[in-house]
């Protein structure tokens, strides 16, 4: 968890100091005391389950609407500014929430919360990314840093979950909302001390419509990717469903307010834990996939059947952990399967699609809970969990992601001028009386010359050779040799005929070979 001892470069110290206000603001924003008792409070001001469904739907509808414009604003104006606006929206949200005595007012509060999340999501990561880039000149520290941000956030959420439960025991529920406001104000102040990175490189912001269109096309035309996207969506439904509707079970079981704290702490901790489990390789083994699928369905069976609060809470926590854990290799597969030309569009599109799916889901869950009780809403969760389980069995075990077809990409033309694999001067002329076309200057087996072929310098040559290739050759050699994907997949992905694909791979290898030969033997082969 703490890599400080390992990587104590001066740049790292400067970076950490510079990022400190972001960590602090994240912590303060994470201390949302009202979250654990929200559903209890909502019930107390007249929300029924259907109303909660509407609230969640309003929220889920606001986020994707605001997300893209907020990204544009962050790029064109100021990322720090957008973060501060986000915190301001959160302040409005908690104040309005705390002042709510009816459903309508609280819906307004939920909308502002949606604005907060939409403005914050993406912006925080971008600001972290650019700061790292500016301080270190690279992005290697990004995963580590974002990991720390997540950790800080998770600690704050767990702490606030427990604290919120305690406050709710001794004080009116709405006080938790008002107590959250000064923490958010403090977050704004802290953000003002942050020195914003000035690397405002123009980012491509796709129009929402085009993103959705691309995503739909991708969904409709690709067999395999469709399953990955489907699993991403049903997983998100379960996760967001737990976050949004999980506490309804506690309401139905009439547990004391105190319980809402540990319940929420359990859910948030499960997200963190799932994030730790997810990257492990065994998650994508067949037996693990079967186990996880069975456990996912099992958790929902408990939610339908059980009347025991500890059992229900346990099932919700485990379900959350499993879904988050699975989401990580699945997300990896999604990205592995999508070429970089449409990656951003598809990734954001899947996110948007997830939100859009959540709207009807939330409405239906709310309606069922209202008419028939939350246990019956559990059946919908069970149905979705069953679908998720089946998808996990199909999608998870394919650890090395298969490349799907890319219909959008026009087939790449075969290279126009085919370079000879070895320079013509290496061979005897065609009219050589004895050995026409045979070696004049044969290549050497490098190992036999006592050359260490995989030294750092040689690897750098290989890398440079690939990086400098024309895009079409590079695509092929990266997929085939670097990523070691089967020829079949690569052809499908790039829309190439077998001969064209092989010819391009051959040329690409030839370029690397020539460069290595020059490096090892100092012989210029390709003029």
């Amino acid at each position: 968890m703490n890599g400080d001892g390992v990587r104590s470069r001066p740049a790292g110290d400067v970076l950490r100091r510079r990022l400190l206000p972001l960590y602090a603001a994240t912590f303060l924003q994470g201390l949302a005391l009202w979250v654990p008792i929200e559903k209890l409070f909502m019930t107390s001001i007249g929300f029924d389950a259907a109303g909660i469904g509407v609230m969640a739907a309003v929220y889920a509808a606001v986020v994707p609407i605001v997300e893209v414009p907020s990204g544009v604003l962050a790029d064109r104006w100021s990322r720090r500014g957008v973060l501060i606006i986000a915190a301001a929206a959160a302040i409005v949200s908690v104040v309005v929430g705390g002042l709510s005595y009816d459903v309508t007012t609280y819906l307004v509060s939920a909308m502002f919360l949606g604005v907060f999340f939409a403005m914050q999501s993406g912006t925080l990561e971008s600001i972290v990314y650019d700061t790292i880039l500016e301080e270190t000149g690279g992005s290697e520290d990004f995963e580590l840093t974002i990991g720390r941000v997540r950790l800080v956030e998770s600690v704050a959420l767990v702490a606030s979950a427990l604290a919120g439960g305690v406050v709710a025991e001794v004080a009116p529920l709405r006080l938790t909302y008002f107590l959250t406001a000064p923490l958010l104000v403090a977050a704004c102040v802290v953000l003002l001390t942050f020195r914003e990175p000035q690397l405002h490189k123009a980012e491509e912001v796709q129009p929402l419509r085009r993103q959705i269109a691309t995503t739909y096309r991708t969904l409709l035309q690709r067999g395999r990717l469709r399953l990955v996207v489907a699993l991403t969506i049903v997983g998100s439904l379960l996760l967001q469903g737990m976050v949004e509707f999980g506490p309804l079970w506690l309401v139905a079981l009439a547990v004391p307010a105190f319980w809402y704290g540990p319940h929420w702490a359990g859910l948030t901790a499960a997200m963190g834990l799932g994030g730790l489990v997810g990257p492990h390789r065994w998650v994508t083994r067949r037996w693990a996939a079967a186990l996880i699928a069975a456990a996912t369905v099992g958790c929902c069976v408990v939610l339908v059947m059980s009347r025991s609060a500890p059992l229900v809470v346990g099932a919700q926590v485990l379900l959350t952990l499993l879904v988050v854990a699975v989401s990580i290799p699945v997300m990896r597969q999604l990205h592995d399967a999508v070429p970089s030309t449409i990656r951003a569009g598809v990734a954001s599109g899947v996110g948007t699609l997830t939100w859009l799916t959540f709207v009807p889901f939330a409405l239906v869950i709310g309606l069922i809970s209202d008419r028939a009780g939350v246990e019956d809403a559990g059946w919908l969760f069970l149905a979705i969990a069953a679908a998720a389980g089946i998808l996990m069995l199909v999608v998870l075990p394919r650890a090395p992601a298969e490349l799907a077809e890319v219909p959008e990409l026009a087939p790449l033309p075969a290279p126009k001028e085919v370079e000879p694999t070895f320079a013509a001067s290496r061979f005897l002329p065609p009219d050589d009386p004895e050995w026409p076309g045979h070696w004049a200057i044969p290549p050497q087996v490098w190992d036999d010359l006592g050359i260490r072929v995989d030294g750092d310098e040689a690897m750098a040559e290989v890398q440079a050779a690939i990086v400098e290739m024309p895009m079409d050759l590079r695509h092929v050699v990266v997929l085939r040799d670097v990523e070691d994907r089967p020829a079949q997949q690569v052809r499908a992905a790039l829309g190439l005929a077998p001969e064209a694909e092989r010819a391009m791979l051959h040329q690409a290898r030839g370029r690397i070979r020539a460069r290595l030969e020059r490096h090892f033997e100092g012989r210029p082969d390709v003029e």
Partner: protein
Amino acid sequence: MSNESHPSGLDQPCVDLVELLTAYLDGALSDQRRRDFEEHLEGCEGCRAALAQWRTVSDLAGRLSAQDVADLDPYVRDRLLSTLRIVRRR
């Protein structure tokens, strides 16, 4: 590669044979062509070296990661952002 007649063994000039290295490693040659290819290799040290170099190239490229040679930044950023978008609901 477009030779209509496939002379066997060393009758095939090296300059043509080296164009088949990738196809050979892919297992994409017809049985007859593969036999000719291997027969040629047996008698031709230069082409054996060329094949060895070809294998070395493929092997070394395989030791690089996709990030070493691809558009690292957008990739990493995207992957993380979407993972987070799912995880960070609240």
